[in-house]
C-alpha cells in the first residue's frame, strides 16, 4: 500500500514539475490564454495573437520576479 502511495505521489510530483515548474503564474496565464482563444474561436474570431502576447508578457514578468528574488 505504501509503495502505491509513493508511486502516486511521485507521479503527481512529476506532472506538477512538468506543468507548473518554478512559476505557477506562467502556466495559469497560458491556461487563461487558451480559454480566451477558445471563446473567441467559438465566436468565429480568429484570435491567434492572444497566446503569443501572453507568452511574451508573462515571460518578462516572471524574469523580473526571478531577478528580484
Amino acid at each position, binding site marked *: 500500500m505504501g509503495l502505491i502511495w509513493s508511486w502516486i505521489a511521485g507521479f503527481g510530483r*512529476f506532472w506538477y*514539475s*512538468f*506543468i*507548473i*515548474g*518554478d*512559476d505557477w503564474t*506562467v*502556466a495559469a496565464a*497560458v*491556461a487563461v490564454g*487558451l480559454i480566451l*482563444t*477558445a471563446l473567441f*474561436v467559438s465566436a468565429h474570431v*480568429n*484570435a*491567434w495573437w492572444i*497566446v*503569443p502576447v501572453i*507568452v*511574451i508578457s*508573462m*515571460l*518578462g514578468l*516572471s*524574469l*523580473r520576479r*526571478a*531577478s*528580484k528574488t
Partner: protein
Amino acid sequence: MTAVLFVLVTTFLASAVEAIEMVTIVLGVGATRGWRATIVGALAGFGVLAVIVVVAGLALSRVPIGPLRLIVGALLLVFGLQWFRKGVMRVAAHGLAGFRLAPTDEPLEWTGPGLDWTAFVLAFKAVVLEGLEVAFIVVSFGANTNQLGVAVIGGVAAVVVIGAIGLILQRVVTRIPRSLLQLVVGILLTTFGTFWSLEGLGIEWPAGDGAILGLLALYLVTAGTYITIERRRVLGFSPGA
C-alpha cells in the same frame, strides 16, 4: 506513372515537414537531457503509433486530431516556457562565451537514478503527435488517389531521411553548451507548443505552417530582448538591479 510520382513526391514533402518537427524536438531534448530516456521515449512513441495505425487502418482519418494537438501543444508550451525562462537567465548570466567550451565542461541536467521521465514524455509526445500526422497524410493522399502503397513509401521515406539528417546533426548539436541549448530548445518547444495548441482550438494561422517560422522569429527576438535587459540588470545598469 505521373500519378504515382505525384503521390510519392507529395506525401514525401508533406510528411517531411511533420518529420522535421518530430526530429527537432527529439534531437533538442536528447542533446539537453541525455539520450537514453529520449530514445526510449521516441521508441515507445513509435510503438504506440504502430499499434494505432494497425488497429485503426484506413479509419485513421476519423481519429480526432484537434484535441490531441491541443493537449500535446499546451503541455509543450508550458514546459517549453520553463526552459525558455531558465535559458534566458543562464545566457544573461554567463553570456555566449560557452560556445567554445567542450560539451563535457557542463554536466547534463539529469543526474538522478532511473529513467528521466521528462525527456521520455517530451520525445514520446513529439513522436506520437507528429507520427500520427504523417499517418494522416499517407492515408488521406493514398486513399484519395488509390495509391496507398506509394503513399506509405513516401511517408516512411520522409521519416527515415529526416531521421538520418538528425542523426548526422546530433554530433554538432551536442557540442553546444547546455545553457544555450536549453534556451534554443525552450524557444522551439514554445514555438511548436503555441502553434499546435492553437491549431487544436481551431485557429487558422496566417500563412499556414509558415506561421511556425513567424513564431520562431518572434520568440527569438523576445529572447534577445530579455537577455539584453537581464544582462543590464546583472551588470547593474538598470534601476531594478
